[in-house]
């Protein structure tokens, strides 16, 4: 590896990296703004200036930009030379000319990269006496707050939003010192990844709007390492709490999973944690249907009375931890345990769990997905079903550009040059779906087919790969594309609720038969795969199975699951019928709770710990951010206590979380890796637990003094190696225990580079999470049977459309997400709309057997023949089932909703009203 000299110090560097990266890797503090490890260099802010000397005799040198200068053997640089430090200070001084006097009322204050860099270069006194430029702000939707005065024109927002995340509605406008970053007009940001602007912006132009409403400084937030519960991707997050409320969610770096970015559901979808719908106390149902609150012990005793010596069954949950599901399964016995999937989902998840262990392809991490150079997507709108994977797929199509750059000898971090070189050339991506997907703009080929035909297309590609002749030119071309690729990737999933689609994806992956080929499935919930692996032996029951046995059951325990979302109403009503005592553990009010006889208030993911298995098969631990409020208890603790009061032999021996994990790991060979997911409770870093609070956590002697001046002891965490305290070190510990990033002089999230072993590399604490399953590479044994359905006249094939905002059960309780989700809808093509004489926003009556729904019409640009889409998981579409055949007719009584009014319109509208009506306009 080459050596360079920085201020006389010899530094070993990596060939091909730039001086800025080399300096950061060596632990030197070199200020920067526009450079970002995921987005490379463009040299626009001029902040990372250093002096480069020609040789040993050269004493004057010249100023170069660190981020634009590649390292070379023996090169000599200086960070400390007066010319360089003066230059860097001058840059900050000029950036500060127009910077408003906003820090006290800016949500970035205290974690602001501009503040850090200003202090780092030593700029203090303002010399400029002229006037400051000002800008008007824009309304950018319920998630992002805009304050354009604070901009330093580093271009990071535009480069992230347009170049990295593929957004189209935010960019640079005007020129010279009139530069403006915003939309062409006010309105909601379209990208599903807009929240990352908050972390990408080095100052306070884009800030987190929901967080702003209940703002606390970074130093006041108590944080813990956590895992996003929004979908199955398993992004690492760090929620921050103060005064008993989870105030915000930040990205937590994991270089194999989410890297620097998460999606908006993950960042903003935790608002339900502070919702009024949360349960605080256990309750027993009164005869009139209301509940009266009881103490924990009373609830346990009541439950025990209903359970001991009786026939008890239980329903688990794909959104509850492995540990809670394990305890419940042991408590009632495997035979009486239903996983809590819908019947359809249970089959799909079961087959995915088997396929992942048999296929000849790798189940890739997000990092590996980014390396794919040819992608085939079968039946998934990845942006809505596994959003973070879609962001990775957007990066994968850039591999063509990097390949071209390599041929030209261009380093990959030369961002503008690489993009200029590639122009519109991308790695190939074929999307086969029933309708529009949010990745269509980067796909080389989009094919619209009904679910059955998608499966047939997949089999045709597999046949073409096997050398058989097909009469499908598109399938042949796709096969050629995959064959020619170094790292081909096939993405499919369960969102179509179609077994054939999943099977055909495996058929393609196995037919490819390459050591580097990848197969990734988008699956619905945060622990769907973990639960599928748990019941993979087939010993359990199903929801319909339990419903049939309902009359013979004395009691039924339901763990964190609204079963009305899992099956049709009559079946669930039968299951929860009055003869059976229903005991439910959950955190938010729902229909299942209303039908229960006893409710136990479960702690949320921010108040409990557990392990989740992501779609990649990676088991990851989440930790409580704060101790449970009121009389909530983590589900695993409820179940452990229930086991103890009912005198369960096996479970009564378990005392703490680590023992449950150990027992669970022994119970199932697939879970053997669970014990290595995170350090044991006894882990100490230099003698202390890892602190959840920053070293500058404020108000400890005042925050509770309103209630009592006698300060209570800090809550104790007896189950994890983290403490509710500021004592201890947050440095170099195992990565799964990193609650926040901070380093001296680096208060913003840019301090992450001090935690990375190298720029953009893994954390110093090693990898986080354990891959539970790996493939035997034998090839999956699948049935290639497609049961083609025949449509009668005026019948349509119902295709589920997952929505990032709205389809998820819990995040939909967040106000901002609910606003973005809108009403449930039915999506049709232009031709069908003409035939039915409806336009966007009209109503359509959808009839599926007995069920009738009146839904809003959305018109899509491409829809497969005879297919219509519907928004899954919405209240309005409850009862509709994927794959069923429906009839449509225009709803004559439909009331169109008025035009959406955005904040600025509202202000203008009110102005008009107060001025004496619209005639004045």
């Amino acid at each position, binding site marked *: 590896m080459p050596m360079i000299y920085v201020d006389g110090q010899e530094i070993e560097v990596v060939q091909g990296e730039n001086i800025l990266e080399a300096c950061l890797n060596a632990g030197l503090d070199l200020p920067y703004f526009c450079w970002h490890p995921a987005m490379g260099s463009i040299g626009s802010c001029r902040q990372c200036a250093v002096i480069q000397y020609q040789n040993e005799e050269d004493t004057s040198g010249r100023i170069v930009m660190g981020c634009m200068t590649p390292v070379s053997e023996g090169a000599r640089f200086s960070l400390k030379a007066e010319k360089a430090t003066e230059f860097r200070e001058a840059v900050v001084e000029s950036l500060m000319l127009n910077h*408003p*006097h*906003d*820090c*006290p*009322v800016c949500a970035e*204050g*205290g974690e602001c990269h501009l503040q850090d860099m200003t202090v780092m270069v030593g700029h203090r006194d303002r010399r400029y006496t*002229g*006037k*400051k*430029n*000002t*800008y*008007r*702000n824009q309304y950018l939707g319920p998630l992002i707050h805009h*304050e354009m*005065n*604070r901009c330093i024109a580093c271009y990071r927002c535009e480069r992230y939003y347009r170049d990295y995340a593929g957004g189209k509605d935010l960019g640079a*406008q*005007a020129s*010279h010192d*009139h530069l*403006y970053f915003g939309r062409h007009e006010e309105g909601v940001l379209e990208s599903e990844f807009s929240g990352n602007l908050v972390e990408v912006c080095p100052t306070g132009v884009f800030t987190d709007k929901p967080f*702003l*409403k*209940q*703002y*606390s*400084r970074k*130093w*006041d937030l108590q944080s813990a390492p956590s895992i996003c519960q929004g979908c199955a991707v398993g992004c690492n997050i760090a929620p921050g709490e103060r*005064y008993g409320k989870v105030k915000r969610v930040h990205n937590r770096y994991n270089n194999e999973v989410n890297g620097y970015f998460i999606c908006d559901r993950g960042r903003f979808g935790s608002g339900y944690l502070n919702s009024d719908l949360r349960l605080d106390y256990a309750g027993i149902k009164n005869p009139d249907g209301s509940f009266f609150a009881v103490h924990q012990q009373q609830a346990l005793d009541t439950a025990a009375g209903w359970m001991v010596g009786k026939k008890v069954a239980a329903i688990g949950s794909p959104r509850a931890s492995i540990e809670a599901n394990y305890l419940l399964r042991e408590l009632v016995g495997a035979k009486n345990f239903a996983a809590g999937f819908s019947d359809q989902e249970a089959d799909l998840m079961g087959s995915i769990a088997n396929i992942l262990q048999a296929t000849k392809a790798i189940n890739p991490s997000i990092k590996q997905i980014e390396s794919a150079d040819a992608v085939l997507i079968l039946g998934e709108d990845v942006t809505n079903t596994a959003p973070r994977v879609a962001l990775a797929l957007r990066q994968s199509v850039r591999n063509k550009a990097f390949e071209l750059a390599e041929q030209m000898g261009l380093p990959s971090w030369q961002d503008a040059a690489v993009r200029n070189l590639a122009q519109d050339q991308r790695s190939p991506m074929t999307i086969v779906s029933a309708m529009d997907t949010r990745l269509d703009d980067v796909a080389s080929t989009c094919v619209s087919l009904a679910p059955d035909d998608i499966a047939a297309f997949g089999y045709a590609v597999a046949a073409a790969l096997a050398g058989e002749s097909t009469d499908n030119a598109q399938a042949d071309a796709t096969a050629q594309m995959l064959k020619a690729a170094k790292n081909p990737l096939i993405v499919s999933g369960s969102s179509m609720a179609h077994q054939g689609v999943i099977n055909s994806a495996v058929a393609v992956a196995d037919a490819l038969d390459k050591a580097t080929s990848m197969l990734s499935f988008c699956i619905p919930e945060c622990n769907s795969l973990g639960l599928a692996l748990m019941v993979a032996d087939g010993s359990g029951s199903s929801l319909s199975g339990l419903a049939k046995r309902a009359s013979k059951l004395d009691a039924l325990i339901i763990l964190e699951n609204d079963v009305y979302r899992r099956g049709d109403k009559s079946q669930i009503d039968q299951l929860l019928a009055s003869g059976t005592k229903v005991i439910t553990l959950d955190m938010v009010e729902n229909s299942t709770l209303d039908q229960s006889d006893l409710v136990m208030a479960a702690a949320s993911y921010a108040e409990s710990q557990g392990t989740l298995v992501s779609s990649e098969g990676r088991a990851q631990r989440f930790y409580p951010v704060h101790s449970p409020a009121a009389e909530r208890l983590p589900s695993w603790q409820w179940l452990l206590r229930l086991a103890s009061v009912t005198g369960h032999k096996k479970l009564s021996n378990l005392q703490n979380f680590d023992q449950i994990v150990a027992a669970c790991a022994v119970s199932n060979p697939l879970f053997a890796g669970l014990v290595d997911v995170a350090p044991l409770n006894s882990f100490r870093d230099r003698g202390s637990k890892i602190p959840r609070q920053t070293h*500058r*956590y*404020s*108000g*400890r*002697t*005042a*925050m509770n*003094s*309103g209630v*009592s*001046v*006698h300060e209570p002891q800090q809550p104790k965490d007896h189950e994890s190696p983290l403490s509710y305290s500021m004592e201890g070190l947050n440095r170099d510990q195992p990565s799964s225990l990193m609650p926040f990033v901070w380093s001296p002089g680096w208060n913003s999230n840019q301090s992450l580079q001090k935690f990375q072993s190298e720029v953009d590399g893994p954390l110093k604490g090693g990898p986080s999470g354990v891959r539970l399953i790996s493939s035997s590479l034998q090839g999956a044994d699948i049935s290639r049977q497609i049961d083609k359905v025949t449509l009668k006249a005026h019948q349509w094939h119902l295709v589920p459309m997952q929505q990032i905002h709205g389809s998820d059960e819990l995040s939909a309780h967040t106000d901002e997400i609910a606003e973005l989700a809108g009403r449930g809808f039915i999506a049709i093509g232009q031709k069908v709309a003409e035939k039915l004489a409806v336009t966007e926003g009209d109503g359509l009556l959808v009839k599926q057997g007995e069920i009738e729904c009146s839904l809003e019409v959305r018109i899509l640009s491409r829809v497969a023949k005879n297919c219509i889409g519907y928004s899954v998981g919405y209240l309005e579409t409850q009862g509709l089932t994927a794959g069923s055949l429906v009839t449509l007719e225009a709803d004559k009584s439909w009331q169109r909703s008025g035009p959406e009014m955005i904040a600025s319109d509202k202000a203008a509208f009110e102005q008009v009203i107060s001025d004496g009506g619209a005639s004045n306009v």
Partner: protein
Amino acid sequence: MLSELRTMWEVLKHTFTKAETVQYPEEMPYLAPRYRGRIVLTRDPDGEERCVACNLCAAVCPVDCIALQKDTREDGTWYPEFFRINFSRCIMCGMCEEACPTYAIQLTPDFEMCEYDRQNMVYEKEHLLIDGVGKYPDYNFYRVSGMKTATKDKGEALNEARPIDTKSLLP
């Protein structure tokens, strides 16, 4: 020898000086306006709360006796939803006053804070907020800050130019 004599002389000399002890509380000592006693929250010259809930006082407080929560007015300006000082912990060091960017928090020459019940030493915003500007009569943070407020549009703050028209082609 000489030093002992000198010492005795010095002591003897003090026999004739006036006593410094005052008959408190009948006689009040003089305390300069900058004396560091009971903390107050002041208002700006327009009569609005000066505190913008920036949390700097709480962060700098060495005994962590200040707790507050930010809230937002309709016009987007910040103010504390609650502001609590636990005077039973306060050491009157004045660092909060030094840290305050809006002159909101000020220490006053009132040191007479005695209670039989410690709980009474916990002051909420209604106890802290006074109807005056305190030691700094003229300062109003929002006239300097670049934020738009109910009474001030963009570009109307101190030393600000009119908002830029991004569609203009003029230099």
